């Protein structure tokens, strides 16, 4: 399933944010602030990751009388996939010849 996932630089940014504290639940607005992504970019990524079962979601009841808040964290598959992808990207970047250098 995860093979068909389109990995944009923004998705990788979201992965990086989740990997900073893999077990911690994150709120949408916090991820948006950490990544500098607007809601119109961030939520389609979260929706896609959840559809591919790479992201788990939960509702957190905060203040009484207020609606619960949606939280997100990567699933075990998501963590594995994110780590592999980020490692792969870094590896590819390192093996690329540096143009212009003597």
């Amino acid at each position, binding site marked *: 399933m995860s093979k068909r996932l389109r990995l944009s630089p923004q998705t990788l940014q979201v992965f990086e944010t989740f990997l900073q504290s893999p077990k911690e639940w994150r709120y*949408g*607005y916090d991820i948006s602030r950490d990544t500098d992504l607007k*809601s*119109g970019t961030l*939520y*389609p990524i979260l929706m896609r990751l959840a559809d591919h079962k790479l992201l788990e*979601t939960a509702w957190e009841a905060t203040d009484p009388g*207020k*609606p619960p808040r949606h939280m997100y964290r990567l699933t075990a598959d998501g963590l594995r996939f994110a780590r592999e992808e980020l490692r792969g990207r870094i590896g590819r970047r390192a093996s690329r010849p540096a143009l212009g250098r003597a």
Partner: protein
Amino acid sequence: MSRALQFASRFLHVVVKHLPAESQPWGRAILREMDFIQSPWSLLSWSIGGACALFVYSVRLQLSTFFQETLGDIKRSGPKQTIVGLLWGLGIAGILLGSCVLGYSALLHIPRLQQRWDRVIDAGLIFLLPEAAYLLAISQLWPRRRSAAIGILLAAAILFTHVVFHHVAHI
């Protein structure tokens, strides 16, 4: 500024209210985050961006359900029956369009109509009337004879494309 705030909040509330059931959790999630945003412009941007994301997600879900249902129907009824249904739908659409073209040709024999209402008759009989009839037929046939409805839908799309190309070429 407060108007922008009010607009942002109301806009997203209305969008979430009209979302299909499957997209509702995401809608409520985006809406709830607005309680934690301080800057009015960030709120406005959050609201509009969120609405766009929800719209695209809902359309994607609806389309995927539509294709899955249609594929399921085709698998259930078998390819032979599906092709027969499609041809049947295309045939009905062809007869309907043919009748409209005949009606159009008959009306063109009336000189007064030809001079004054030529364009209106042209657009009405060759495009609007058949397309309206197609849509009506599709809505009626969709629950019972889906392959025939898809045939008519195909004809409607072909006619629409033809008219668009015709106008683009003659402008």
